[in-house]
């Protein structure tokens, strides 16, 4: 399978990428690692006329401590997230979740920014940045703006990014007391997307593949805040969600998985808190 014809352009800087996107209009897409976009293009589910390759913008690939936050460049690969010693000590949830995305080849190419911008509710990192209460930084024709992770995911493959806007950085505030973390996902085969996944950080709980977008398990968080045990709180994991029915399981099965995985995640988080 090969994608429909398109024009390939390579950006040498963020400014050039934004200028190319402005020229390309609605028919242009940014290409990072390409491991979400190219498979869709091969299936003709995405048919952009212009691809703007940002894959060489090394200035967007980093993990660093920055002014009381951990700053992660949008072009950082899953592999580099998993290998980061700063993340291992400061944000192990992100490092561990990244180490379980896809397979080694995918992790060499796929990027955190590409995954978030793609906004697939079955992807792992969108739920992880929700649990981390991250801030996403985007640059566009009218400058830079910050978007709370909670406001970023707006529907199936829909993010808050405007046309021509490029996700550049993910910022996670530091210095908060840690109440433990965990990442749990259930797959049929190692490389598959999660049938259901759960990310927990400091009593914030986010769910993978339990609706049209990654969601916080608010009812679980409220129960925890009210003093419920992790086991009792986990019983609320599927409240307010609308999980899909597909080959891997129906909605009822996913609701069950969400409760089981949330209980495991809260137990593991408590053991690390």
């Amino acid at each position, binding site marked *: *399978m*090969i*994608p*429909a*014809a*398109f*024009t*390939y352009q*390579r950006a040498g800087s963020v400014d050039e990428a934004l200028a190319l996107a402005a020229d390309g209009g609605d028919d242009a897409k940014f*290409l990072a690692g*390409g*491991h979400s976009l*190219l*498979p869709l293009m*091969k299936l003709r589910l995405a048919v952009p006329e212009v*691809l703007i*390759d940002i*894959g060489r913008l090394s200035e967007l690939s980093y993990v660093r401590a920055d002014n009381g936050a951990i700053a992660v460049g949008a072009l950082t690969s899953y*592999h580099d997230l998993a290998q980061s010693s700063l993340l291992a000590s400061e944000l192990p949830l992100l490092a561990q979740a990244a180490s379980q995305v*896809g*397979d*080694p*080849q*995918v992790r*060499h*190419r796929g990027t955190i920014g590409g995954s978030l911008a793609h906004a697939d509710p079955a992807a792992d990192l969108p739920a992880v940045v929700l649990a981390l209460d991250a801030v996403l930084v985007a640059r566009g024709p009218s400058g830079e703006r910050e978007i709370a992770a909670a406001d970023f995911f707006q529907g199936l493959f829909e993010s808050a990014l405007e046309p021509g806007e490029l996700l550049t950085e993910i910022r996670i505030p530091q210095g908060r007391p840690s109440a433990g973390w965990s990442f749990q996902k259930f797959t049929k085969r*190692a*490389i598959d997307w999660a049938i259901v996944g759960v990310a927990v950080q400091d009593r914030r709980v986010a769910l993978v593949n339990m609706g049209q977008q990654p969601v916080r398990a608010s009812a679980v968080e409220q129960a925890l805040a009210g003093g419920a045990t992790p086991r009792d709180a986990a019983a609320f994991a599927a409240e307010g969600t609308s999980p899909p029915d597909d080959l891997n399981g129906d909605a009822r099965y996913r609701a069950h998985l969400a409760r089981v995985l949330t209980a495991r995640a809260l137990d593991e988080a408590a053991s690390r808190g």
Partner: protein
Amino acid sequence: MKVSVTVNGNPVTAEVPDRTLLVHFVREEAGLTASNVGCDTSSCGACTVLLDGQSVKSCTVLAAQADGCAVTTAEGLAGPDGELHPVQQAFRAEHGLQCGFCTPGMVMAAVSLLAENPSPTEDEVRLALEGNLCRCTGYHNIVRAILAASKERVS
């Protein structure tokens, strides 16, 4: 567009459509057919090559993305005198292949693993192969071969 890739140390330049996938560039422009098109959906790993030293699925990389980069395929592993790479030798010694279709991808995934982790445990080898499928299900001997190659290299 004009794409130039150093394949197994040799420069290969060709005018190709923008949508050309790296696996097709390697097979049709460089004329190297070890890298197989298996699933074509970045699941099976039969097309695995090294791109600037890291394993990638070449069915999910554009040739244009590899422009100016170095690609290593299974054909590029043997020494100049034809001496097999330790991973290739180990696959032969341990019977790490049956039909052979997945083998070039398995070998490249193994080379990438051993470059990052020269002494993997058996569990680490199995995890490192999660992106490579063998439909003959000959995994045990593949894992044995990679462990043997790692011991060979470390000793």
